[in-house]
């Protein structure tokens, strides 16, 4: 019964392995989502008009049950050109993360789009990828990013303004560089719609 003995030894070793493997039951650490965006502020300023702040606050992220709180601080003035800028943060961590900087670093992979509906608002990009890189860059052919933009109002009215950030869009597709989202493709990093009024 040599073989039985051999087997029993093997079995004993195996059992030893079982017990020695199972003592690492230390508590796992919490994970803080790295790609989370909790707060967005779009600041629109114009000479001779009150600044308009478009803000979104979504502390529990994309999969949390709480819906984002979307607010528009005031009304736009008719026939005015506003200058637009972004502040995008991840406040879920103790030290809030500045996502705007991250987008600047990855400018070539990102583009903002602005879509107004039922209201006389037009937008235009005022930046290019060259603004965010130290490397040689041809501003004439560089693509827009949209972290800086201008917003022009015409006659009074009420409608919505959709602000979207696409990740890895096809910036060469027709109309995309001019701000048309239709052919942009890519994945959505931000897609928020604000109620806006032009007075």
């Amino acid at each position, binding site marked *: 019964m040599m*073989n*039985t003995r*051999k*087997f029993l030894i*093997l*079995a004993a070793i*195996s*059992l030893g*392995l*079982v017990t020695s*493997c*199972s003592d690492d*039951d230390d*508590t*796992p650490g*919490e*994970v*803080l*989502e*790295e*790609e989370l*965006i*909790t707060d*967005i502020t779009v600041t629109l300023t114009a000479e001779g008009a009150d600044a308009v702040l478009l803000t*979104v606050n*979504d*502390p*529990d*992220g*994309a*999969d*949390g*049950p*709480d*819906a*984002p709180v979307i607010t528009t601080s005031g009304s736009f003035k008719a026939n005015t050109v506003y200058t637009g800028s972004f502040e995008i943060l991840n406040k*879920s*961590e*103790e030290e809030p993360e500045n996502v705007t900087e*991250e987008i600047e*670093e*990855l400018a070539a*992979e990102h583009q903002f789009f602005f879509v107004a*509906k039922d209201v006389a608002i037009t937008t235009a990009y005022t930046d290019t990828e060259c603004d965010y890189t130290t490397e040689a860059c041809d501003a004439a052919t560089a693509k827009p990013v949209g972290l800086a933009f201008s917003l022009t109002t015409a006659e009074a009215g009420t409608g*919505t303004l*959709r602000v*979207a950030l*696409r*990740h*890895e869009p096809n910036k060469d597709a027709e109309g995309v560089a001019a701000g048309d*989202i239709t052919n942009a*493709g*890519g*994945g*959505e*990093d*931000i*897609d*928020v*719609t604000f109620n806006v009024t032009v007075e």
Partner: protein
Amino acid sequence: MKRGTLCIWLLLVIQVSYAQDCLKTLSGSVIDFHDGLPLEGATISYNNITIQTDAEGKYSIPNLCEIAYAFTIAHENCNSQVVTINVQEITHKDFYLEHHLSELGEVKIASIQEQLRSSYEGALDKNDIERYSAASLGDALKEITGVSSINTGSTIVKPVVQGLYGSRITIVNNGVRMQDMEWGEEHAPNIDINTAGSVTLVEGASALQYGGDAIGGVILMKPTKVPLKDTLFGKLHTSFSTLGRGNATTAELSKGYKSGSFFKVQGMIKKFGDVEAPDYVLSNTGIEGKGASISFGKNKFEYGWDVFYSYFENEIGILSAAHLGNTNNLIEAINSREPRIIRDFTYAIDNPRQDVNHHLGRVNYFKRFEKLGKLNIQYDFQKNSRKEFDIRRGEELSKKPSVDLELTTHTLSTDFKFDSKPNYTVNVGFMGRYQENFASGENGVRRLIPDYEKIDAAGFLIATVDIADGLTYDGGVRYDFNYIDALKFYRKSTWEDRGYNIDFAEFEVRDAEGSQLLTNPVYEFHNFSTTHRVQYEFNNYRLAANYALAKRAPNPAELFSDGLHHSAARIENGDLRIGQETSHKMQLSLQKNGTFWRWKVAPYVNFVQDYILIEPTSVRLSIRGSFPVWDYRAADSRFIGLDMNTSFHWSDQWRTDHSFSIVKGKEIDTDTPLINIPPPSLRNKVSYTKEKLNLSLESEYNFRQNEYPDNIMVFSSAEQKEVPLDINTPPDAYHLLHFSSDYSLDTGTKSTLKIGVDIHNILNTTYRNYLNRLRFFADDLGRNITVRLSINY
């Protein structure tokens, strides 16, 4: 070698002593070692003379000389024995033969009688496995009537048995129950089909040996056994396919010894690039796989042991166009009918992709006890690791997996099979299992599945009884205990939104950073399952009735999922309140085996109390836009189905095969259809066989699934209004034609060469399959031509 010399020596002795007085008689019986019964018709041969045992297993050999003889004792289905006896000293001898060689390792195709006895639903043989060598287990299993698959693209294929899949199907690989995160819809079994010699779908009581929760069925993969003789053989199989422009190669080498020792190694490697639909390349759908297995051991009459180890890994690209940002992308994809991303063909596999590997090891020992039965003891170890990579913000993040899980399992099991009585066998066994899931938190994505420890214990008893001529009963009971201890971080808002703070306050451990809460859910489940089956055989008919009660504890995904599943762009919510599923399944089957006409009809009903399903229920808004929410819930459901197949053997050369299967799954309370129920399918095949040539043409018709749950309404930010999301609407019916052929060449006395050509989807038909999760994004596969070459040596 030693034995050969001995034989020659004996022959010489016999020759020399032939002139002596030869008046001795040797008598005795030939007895089955296994159950002590006499063996009729056993042969005893020596010196070119052969004698047979009578009905009582007795023999008598007269006119022997007073010398030593080498007798060869043989019996059908037994391994022959050579025994040297000095007739001068011995005149009475009983020989013991082992009559259950299928278990001992003789390569032998089970006789028809044996097959009729068993509760096989369907089986794949070596030829089927060879044909699917480059594909996956899930693809091959579809050859069995009633089996379909749920796919993610063409490389992730999960078997669906009579409408059920995932944790409801148990896959047993070489005696080891696979623990490879089968809870995920996009998780294919981590198995190389080439390690199997046969694949069987088992229902009936024998399935209880492997688990009580296999509501759908048990799939048994068994390796080819190495015969008990001095032999060395192997095979090399390689195939090239036009789709994916790739190759799969598998090689195997087996060494057997008469002493019962054996050794076997096997390896597999495959690499395919992007596959193609009729009109475009399906970008990022390549696959790279590797596998190896080794086994060695000793198989004797009375005892045996073996050691088996296998490794398997797959790197699988997921269709680029299937990566979604939010609901807008999904709406666009569904409406556009064309993938968003079409690039040139490449072998490169980019994100999104899956990187999975699986280690499996086992040590097995058995011992037979004369006139009693067989004891089996097994320890097995498995380690399954899964990494899923998504397109994330920036290159650095994309290098980190979004899902990073490691599942380690240890199982100790033992069973005793009392099989010495001719009219019944009883199998009693116990199992203990420890499992640990580790979810890495290094990757900046909240864990979809938490860390947990799981302990399972089970006991079972299965009996098979021959009641009367042609009438058999098999039945069994099993008890399973599951204990699961998880550590999970919930978002506080989620915890409260779902009311867990009221119902499960005892699970709360402490607050954590990022408005999270550490919880410690602990569950215990007691599951009782039983199966009863009666079978009656008369003339060429077989009638069987089967009732099975099965209970399945919810899997970790059903309990704990919570969050955005990036690769699917959907929020998946488990439910801590989900309890066990209880299934009552009744199946009848009537089959006829004739020389010209064979058929089988098998209707079934399966009532599942608290059937756990996941389906789209609502949409959640966030900064990233809106996402469909898929919730797990339990609902009493019923499955009613019918599997039919028939074959006509028109002549020695021509035969046709026809099969049809249909299943209807509905929620009982609301009478609404369940999601992901396979549509009816009809298959017809014409085959021609002449000597070493096989040709077949197969038609596959898949009906449209007309019963599906309602679509949901979602807010489209692109259109600034609520729009219907066509997420449940099934695609149209489709018809495909396939061709298969092979030809065998003899290249020598021992080796054979087989060449095969297969064409899948001959007409290059454009279609989409309801059970392909990527059907929203792209068409299914176009024409695929595969050339196969196999050498047996």
